[in-house]
């Protein structure tokens, strides 16, 4: 399948200069992977591992102090490959919402509190299709909204009159109104209750099936990845340390950190004592040399402290960035 999104040696740091103290927080540290068309790609990792920063950079939302230090991102659009980080704002504007759209984190305060939902849809449609007149645009949004199972009165109400779950579904409807090819979703379900979260996940899967497009979802909740994602990338200290199909990640993860992550997931019906990974994730401004997991890794040996391990293919579609992946695999059982 054709790669619709190609990411190569991407580096993005927070340049934190406050009163003479000048430090770089290495939130995205040399990330390389491809996403093919029609796939749901999940990016998992704990808070502070740089996954939200990665998705912001992929959508070219980087504003100071977040600066792209190197590498490139390529959208495979009809008009050829485009790097959103380099093309001018005019061209980027054309791509936004038509080719690629974004569902932000924390949906509680994402809608303009002083205008009705209808006007919010109008602003978005008018921004990308100048010609359409208001009535037609509103009719289009109403159809789109009811096709997603939202009640019609939503259009005439203000954000403060809607519940959290409803606001998140409106944001998803907004992001998919112009049928984009790629949807970036940054923790779309974190602030929601379990039942509402299930509704939102079903909505996203329904839209993906409908539009045959690509969804890149970032969340720390492995259960959401298990429900939705076809392939998962595990992120740790600003790097992707393992990419594999969902079944592989859950059944036989290779990287020691992923193993810890999967093993420490509590499940209803399983009371066996579980252990946390020892120590704590490193702070992104003072990373250990070599593999960033070496201070916590029980299988670490010398070349783990040497150069940073690159993602290498172990099996079909299963890549891992670890020098001791084999021992870790048989060490697991």
């Amino acid at each position, binding site marked *: 399948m054709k790669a619709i999104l190609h990411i190569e040696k991407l580096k993005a740091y927070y340049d934190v200069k406050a009163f003479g103290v000048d430090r770089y927080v290495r939130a995205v540290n040399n990330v390389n992977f491809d996403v093919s068309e029609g796939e749901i790609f999940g990016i998992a990792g704990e808070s502070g591992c740089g996954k939200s920063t990665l998705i912001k950079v992929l959508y070219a939302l980087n504003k100071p102090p977040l600066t792209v230090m190197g590498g490139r991102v390529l959208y495979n659009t009809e008009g050829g490959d485009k790097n959103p980080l380099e093309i001018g704002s005019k061209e980027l504007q054309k791509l*936004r919402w038509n080719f690629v759209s*974004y569902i932000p984190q924390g949906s509680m305060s994402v*809608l303009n509190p002083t205008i009705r939902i209808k006007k919010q849809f109008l602003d978005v449609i008018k921004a990308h299709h100048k010609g359409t007149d208001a009535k037609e645009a509103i009719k289009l949004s109403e159809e789109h909204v009811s096709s997603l199972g939202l009640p019609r009165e939503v259009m005439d109400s203000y954000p403060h009159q809607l519940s959290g779950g409803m606001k998140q579904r409106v944001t998803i409807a907004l992001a998919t109104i112009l049928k984009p090819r790629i949807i970036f979703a940054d923790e779309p379900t974190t602030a929601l209750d379990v039942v509402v979260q299930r509704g939102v996940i079903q909505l996203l899967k329904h839209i993906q099936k409908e539009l045959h497009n690509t969804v890149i979802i970032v969340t720390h909740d492995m259960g959401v990845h298990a429900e939705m994602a076809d392939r998962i990338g595990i992120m740790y200290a600003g790097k992707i340390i393992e990419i594999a199909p969902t079944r592989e990640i859950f059944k036989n993860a290779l990287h020691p950190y992923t193993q810890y992550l999967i093993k420490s997931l509590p499940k209803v019906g399983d009371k066996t004592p579980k252990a946390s990974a020892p120590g704590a994730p490193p702070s992104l401004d003072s990373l250990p040399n070599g593999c960033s997991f070496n201070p916590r890794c029980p299988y670490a040996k010398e070349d783990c402290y040497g150069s940073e391990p690159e993602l290498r293919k172990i099996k079909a579609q299963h890549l891992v960035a670890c020098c001791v992946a084999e021992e870790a695999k048989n060490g697991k059982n």
Partner: protein
Amino acid sequence: MDIRRYIIPRLIQFFIVIFIGITITFIVPRITPIDPVEAVINRIMQYGVYMDASSIEQMRATLVDLYGLSGSVIEQYGRYLLRLVSGDLGPSLSMFPTPVTEIIYNALPWTLGLLLTSMMISWVIGNILGGVSGYFSEKKWSKAISMVATTVYPIPYYIMGLIMIILFVYLIPLFPMSGGFSIGLTPSFSLGFIASLLKHAFLPALSLITIGCGWWFLSMKALSSTTKSEDFVQYAEASGIPRHKILFGYVIKNSMLPQVTQLALQIGGVFNGALVTEYLFSYPGLGQVLYIAITNGDFNLIMGISIFSVVAIALAALVVDLIYPLIDPRVRYS
């Protein structure tokens, strides 16, 4: 039902403001060392104004009500309120026997004209400029304007007036130094009169507007630079909505709301400014009348102006507060 829940507390606040203002004006004459009634009586005698016995008695009665010490405090307060409600603030001492209310009504249109126009102009310009500059806070021009606003805002109205006079009367003689209109003209709606009226009002208005713009600019810039980093603005930018629509429809629209409540609180301050500027430019408004009252020791007129301005300002603040729900949907449809 929700609107009432918003309006009722505002109405109560309106009456509390008036109550406190009037009580202060009631207490002041009663705690002064000198006995105001006698001081006023012999003040009039000095002017050699001929008054027969009955008008003196009638005058003494009104004075006793306004500042008099007879009867218990509650009785005095009761009579005092009755007199105010009936709108009788007693006669002016310096322009005896014209009642205080008449003098105030003559001077009122001038003050209202100057005050309202300069407040509206400075509120609109200051907020729009502040909103735009807050949104583009990194740009050079925005920093430059903030520098200007930071130097202009803290200057007291009187000194700003002085600077205006030095600049536009001495250095570049463009505008008249004082007065409401050229002496020879009679007040009418003829073109000539209005032209001279505007010419005279320009400098006082300009000094009020400059300071007003400074304040609204700075407060709006602070508001819009915080609103700029709110989630819904970031999301609007991410969804490709053009910057000008985000600036006006999202950033300024949301930052304007607190500026409306702030307007209600600022009216009192701007009114002070108008009084001082009118005195400096001897502009025929309440400020000028107040100055004459002070020099002539006309207690009645000073008290009348105080009470009147308390009620007027409280009313203006109430009106502004009532506009707020029309703008903020969260209050209208809570």
